[in-house]
């Protein structure tokens, strides 16, 4: 990421931890960061939000795992990953060596799993904080979506906040597939979330016109990409409107600096770039630069001045 030629102060923070750029990767869209190295200066990225990890290694779902959709895609990876041991042994040390900040996404099927993951990540070098994936619609059953129930969601967040390293900000990642996202946001904020990541994918389905069956083995999958951006922005807007004091990591279809600007103006103090990385492996760095230019053009001296500006 080349230093941009603007005077805009791009620093922001995740909870109480300062980061040099407001542009992060999105969980599951940049693996554990290694593959981006040819395209992006990893140490300059706000933080690398790693693929959601669980206690045990997971194979993930059989293929086909994706379908392209208009301005988006549907995925059903099934949280393939090395498990917490693999993460601690291989991925996190690699990132720490390069001075990259890891915002570790954790996932589980029981409250205790989340808490145990938080404990395992205490004091680990290079770990900046935790994003708690309570909203992934790709796991085995619909029942696992904690994020659709304010009570279940708060239970997880309270347990993680208690178990986690006090220096680690804990962000709850919310699902848009709810009648009242503000209700869920309020519940997790009251249970100790230091911030909110929003949004995860929307539950979607594609049918293959040839086989005449759902494309994905898991039938439904998660919809992401620019197609969902207006929904993501609406969620960020509503939650910032209701809870202006709660930091938001905004995401959902961000592809350009002007897209990121919309999230910032709506109330996000940082953003994640997900699916756009598949289109452009240098997207995270490009969005940072474009956002800096856009802020400068609009007369902002710092990113933080622009956060929530559209509400004022």
């Amino acid at each position, binding site marked *: 990421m080349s230093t941009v030629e603007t005077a805009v102060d791009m620093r922001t923070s995740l909870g109480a931890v300062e980061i040099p750029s407001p542009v992060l990767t999105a969980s599951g869209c940049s693996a554990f960061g290694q593959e981006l190295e040819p395209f992006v200066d990893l140490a300059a990225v706000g933080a690398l939000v790693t693929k959601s990890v669980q206690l045990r290694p997971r194979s993930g779902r059989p*293929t086909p795992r994706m379908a392209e959709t208009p301005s988006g895609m549907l995925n059903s990876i099934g949280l393939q990953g090395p498990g917490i041991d693999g993460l601690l042994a291989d991925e996190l040390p690699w990132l720490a060596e390069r001075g990259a900040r890891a915002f570790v996404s954790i996932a589980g099927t029981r409250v205790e799993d989340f808490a145990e993951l938080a404990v395992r990540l205490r004091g680990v070098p290079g770990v900046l904080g935790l994003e708690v994936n309570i909203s992934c619609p790709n796991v085995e059953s619909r029942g696992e979506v904690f994020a659709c129930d304010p009570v279940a969601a708060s239970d997880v967040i309270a347990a993680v906040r208690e178990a986690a390293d006090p220096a680690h900000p804990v962000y709850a990642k919310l699902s848009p597939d709810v009648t009242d996202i503000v209700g869920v946001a309020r519940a997790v904020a009251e249970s100790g979330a230091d911030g909110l990541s929003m949004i995860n994918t929307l539950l979607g389905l594609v049918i293959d016109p040839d086989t005449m069956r759902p494309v994905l083995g898991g039938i439904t999958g998660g919809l992401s990409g620019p197609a969902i951006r207006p929904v993501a922005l609406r969620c960020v807007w509503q939650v910032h409107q209701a809870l202006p004091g709660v930091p938001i990591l905004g995401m959902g279809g961000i592809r350009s600096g002007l897209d990121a600007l919309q999230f910032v103006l709506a109330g996000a103090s940082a953003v994640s770039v997900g*699916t756009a*990385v598949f289109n452009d492996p240098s997207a995270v760095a490009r969005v940072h630069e474009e956002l800096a230019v856009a802020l400068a053009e609009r007369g902002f001296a710092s990113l933080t001045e622009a956060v929530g500006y559209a509400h004022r």
Partner: protein
Amino acid sequence: MTDHDGDVGRLTSPAPRAAHPPVQRTVEVIGRRPVNAYVELTLAASDMAERAEPGQFVAFAIGGDTSALLLRRSIAISAAGDGVVSVVVSAAGPGSTWLTQRRVGDAVDVVGPLGRPFPAAPAGARALLVGGGYGAAALVGLAARLTAQGHGVDVVAGAASADRLCSVAELQGIADRVEVTTDDGSAGRPGRVTVAVDELLAGAGVVYACGPMPMLRTVADAASARGIPSYVAVEESMACGIGVCMTCVLPVVGEDGRTRFSRSCTEGPVFGGDRVRFADVGALTWDVVGADAMGVVQP
């Protein structure tokens, strides 16, 4: 199904990584010509050309900023050198159709070279190269490298029909022998590639194949059955091409003998033919690492 209790008797080692990391460039289309049912595009892409090794591919962005198609399309490199990279594209769906419609002077956004190249042949081994459809294009560079290294090279190029053959003339200029087969008999010998492969396998010390999955499976199985190492370049549906999305996996046996869902973009597309569990592609069997966490356990 491949033996997967340990790695005993495995004929291949996993293909090593490429020497160079990929780059991302906006490049100019400097040549376009129809090749039978396909379109060959030539790109002014000097640093990609320098880095590319046979078996690698590039990934194209489709349609610019206002395109509804977000995912890159992976296309094998058919030739690389003199500052130029060539690809042969078959218009399968909207993305590849868009590619075939590019004109000279157009700019395209491309990432590459991607994936692991074909590994070297065992010392002194005669190589059999098998290409299906446009898959033959990916073998031209390999054939040239192998002959330059002093290996004897035989080629089988097969396709459904004459118009879906590819790169036959180029391969004839390099290889010792090029057998052509078509399913409908409209060119070369009628039938699948196997009719020629079975003949040529006898003299081969290593097999390389690129083409549709059923062909790869047949060729890999035939080679393995005779104790000949084979390397196949697979074609799995890819969203990113660079290893970050996990959509392109298939079950592959590692050096520890355990099967993992491996990314065909970064751990492939070239895999040992006796390491890909072709029968289980698209399925999740209990012995894949991490299947237990998905609720799939040993029966």
